[in-house]
């Protein structure tokens, strides 16, 4: 009896959000797309350990070195700590000696020194021209060493495309997140307070929305070489937040007239709490369903910028740059362009599936049309 009563007390009904997540899981195509894409993305975070010309571990004269980890952490902490980059010279060879050659040399020497390379021993920005057989010029076709071939400078396309995947998705996510934070904040303020603030806010939005993004970028690039963060920030400021602000502002306008807001005011709740605790969760539906499609947009516009050469600085591995290379080459070097295109296609399709699923899961009116 006691047990039963306790159980009953535990009954907690699902919130609208939980219901939608359950709905989403029922949409198999979207759910599996999400699982595949997110696991690939998580995998791609570890790219420096999985495909790199830096070895995972080196034993040299009884000391151990871990060059690939340097590479891996450099991405996050490189700004704070200066990591030492190793090359052949640190291990008794010439500076140009790659670790793959070093591995062979150590093996031949058989002095107890060894090199452990990552599963795929080529990096995205390395040009192993010295390892090409006599008379072979890059780009080379796919073979056992370079799965998807090499580009015009002899860099490994598989490695570049994989790193490009990480960068593209990260870019899409980051820009979407930042524009959402910024746009929701602005939209909430304009919609909730309205009046004069709204009037001037909207004018500012209008000014921003008339800025031609590509031209602004072209001019900016003249002054400073854009970094990843700089590009993302530009996207958010010039483009991303505007659409979100419009949506959220309208939702806030509608929701603030509802009685639950009046009820919260009547109990003495502060404006900030009303905006973000009460209204926001009710105002988010449309912008959430919109998010996957926003990510698609940002991924493809990064590709476009890179393609035009106004994107990320040159050695950075990116799809747009690969496509650009491929489109300048003779069609017999098809692999340069096919690889990034196929990857782009697959990625965007998967995200679209996810977006469709989210939209369907969020649709409260599936059955409400009389027929």
């Amino acid at each position, binding site marked *: 009896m006691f047990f039963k009563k306790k159980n009953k007390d535990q009954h907690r009904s699902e919130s609208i959000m939980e219901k939608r997540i359950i709905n989403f899981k029922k949409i198999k195509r979207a759910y599996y797309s999400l699982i595949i894409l997110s696991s690939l993305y998580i995998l791609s975070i570890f790219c420096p350990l999985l495909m790199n010309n830096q070895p995972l571990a080196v034993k040299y004269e009884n000391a151990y070195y871990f060059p690939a980890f340097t590479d891996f952490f450099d991405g996050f902490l490189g700004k704070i700590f200066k990591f030492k980059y190793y090359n052949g010279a640190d291990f008794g060879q010439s500076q140009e000696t790659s670790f793959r050659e070093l591995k062979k040399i150590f093996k031949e020497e058989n002095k107890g020194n060894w090199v452990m390379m990552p599963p795929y021993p080529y990096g995205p920005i390395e040009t192993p021209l010295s390892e090409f057989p006599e008379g072979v010029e890059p780009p080379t076709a796919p073979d056992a060493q370079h799965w998807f071939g090499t580009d015009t400078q002899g860099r490994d396309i598989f490695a570049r495309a994989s790193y490009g995947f990480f960068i593209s998705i990260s870019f899409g996510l980051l820009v979407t997140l930042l524009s959402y934070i910024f746009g929701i904040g602005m939209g909430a303020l304009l919609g909730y307070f309205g009046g004069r603030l709204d009037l001037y806010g909207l004018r500012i939005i209008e000014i921003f929305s008339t800025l031609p993004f590509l031209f602004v970028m072209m001019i900016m690039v003249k002054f400073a070489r854009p970094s990843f963060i700089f590009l993302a920030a530009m996207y958010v400021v010039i483009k991303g937040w505007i659409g979100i602000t419009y949506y959220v502002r309208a939702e806030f306008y509608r929701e603030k007239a509802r009685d639950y807001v009046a009820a919260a005011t009547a109990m003495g709740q502060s404006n900030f709490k009303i905006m973000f605790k009460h209204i926001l969760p009710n105002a988010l539906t449309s912008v959430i369903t919109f998010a996957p499609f926003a990510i698609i947009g940002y991924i493809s516009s990064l590709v476009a910028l890179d393609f035009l050469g106004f994107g990320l600085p040159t050695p950075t591995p990116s799809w747009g740059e690969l496509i650009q290379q491929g489109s300048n080459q003779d069609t017999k070097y098809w692999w340069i362009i096919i690889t990034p295109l196929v990857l782009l296609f697959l990625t965007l399709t998967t995200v679209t599936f996810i977006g469709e699923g989210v939209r369907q899961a969020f649709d409260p009116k599936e*059955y409400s049309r009389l027929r």
Partner: protein
Amino acid sequence: MSDKLLEVKNLKTYFHTENGTVKAVDDVSFTLHKGETVGIVGESGSGKSVTSLSIMRLIPMPPGEFAGGEVIWHKDDGTKENLLEIPIDRMRDYRGNDISMIFQEPMTSLNPVFTCGDQVVEALALHQGLGEAEARKKTIELFDQVKLPTPERIFEAYPHQISGGQKQRVMIAMAMSCEPKILIADEPTTALDVTVQKRILELMLNLQKEKGSTTIFITHDLGVIAEIADRVIVMYKGKIVEQGSVLDIFSNPKHPYTKGLLACRPPLHKRLYRLPTVKDFMEVKDGKIIEKISSVEEALKAVEVKPEDREARIKKMMQKEPILKVEGLKTYFPSRRNFFGKVLDYVKAVDDISFDVYPGETLGLVGESGCGKTTLGRTILRLVPAHAGKVIYKGKSILDLSKSDMKDMRRDMQIIFQDPYSSLNPRMTVGAAIIEPLQIHGILANDNERMDKARQLLETVSMQADHVNRYPHEFSGGQRQRICVARALALEPEFIILDESVSALDVSVQAQVLNLLNELQDNFNFTYIFISHDLSVVKFMSDRMVVMNRGKIEEMGDADDICYHPKREYTQRLISAIPEGRLEDIRERFERKMNG
């Protein structure tokens, strides 16, 4: 009466939801004859709307399903057709042409981007193939028939430019446009004020007399049925519990549910301390209905207040200092501005209102929609800025308080809103909603203690403690309004404004909530301002009453006095608009009908 028009035989409409099958309509049979008006009455969820939608085959499938039964249409040439089996294309010919429908919400059932005229013209063009000029002429004729003032102007007007009652008239004109054999009116007056309701009902009666059309009238209010129907079908949980002529049902109700419905409407000419509810008449045990009280009169007599008790109560109340004084309060909204934004003209929503409220009293505030009663309530709580005047609560001038003082004041003064569906945040559990005011004012040490308090409060409003973890969408309108009451009680206020708090509820549920409010007042000595458009409800609740019209006070005084001896014409109009469902009135109507 052998001229059958429509026969519903053993209709079963089920909905397959995640939580199992809902038998919305469970084995319902009735016959509709030419020229009669059948009222279907029941509380929300009783399946009355689904029945009518099933006849129109407007049930979304899935999740709906016709699990059995027939809807047989008798054609003029004597042949029959089962509407549930004909192809959907054929069904479209029936819809609008032979059977048409008026919905509850006139605000949303007209398309806001077309003029009212266009929408009727469209219906005419679709079903009768009329040309534009002809259709226009016919539409204006129809508008004239539904007693719309200046039909030509309404023809050109957009839905937002006309009032709710006028919109419902346009809807009726649209439904009548193709001279349907059956008109289904699904709660056509529920969203309207009583005064407007009265006029719409008169209109429908007249049209029926002139055209001899057949009507199915759906409502939750037996009082309305008494005004319009010839026969009544009482539905409860998807089943018909009683049917018969209006006179029979009102003079001699058999089923306890019907009796409950008859008794729960606040009577105008009696003073009760609580309303009998359906629960007083019946109990459901193991799916069987057990009758508790057999006579409506008996039930009413048991709860009647003696005049001397009432006098004593009012005398005692008036001896104290008023808890709230409103002096010359004005709330204006700018209506016209010049080029530079200077306000030229105001809408005077509240125009120079003064009254006192005594501790422990219920002051009723009654008037048609748009009379400023809601704005008045909100101005008192400073939810809407006042233009001029004073609101003095316990010696403090509310309108001059600083922001932080006002926050403290809000503990003492609470409001419960009209719409239980929108006044609870759908994203918050019931518990979270109730403890929110406690969090804001830092009452009790932590959220665990507050949750315990929320459980207590839920029990106070006769709900279950374990409802704290549920979300509002799982509850019915009446339950949600109880949750709102619990939330208002959390801060242990002394003064509560009830702003049309029961207007969105079914009559039977309304009675339960009203009783609850009265019980709470007795237990905690609350002071209420009770706002409603329905004079009978206000009269039941209040000690004194203020009748408002166009932002001004028409009449103020003892509630019973005003009801029994109204001085102003406006008050008389409000009183006459109430569908009381008195036997004499029904008899008179029937006699008039017999005599033509």
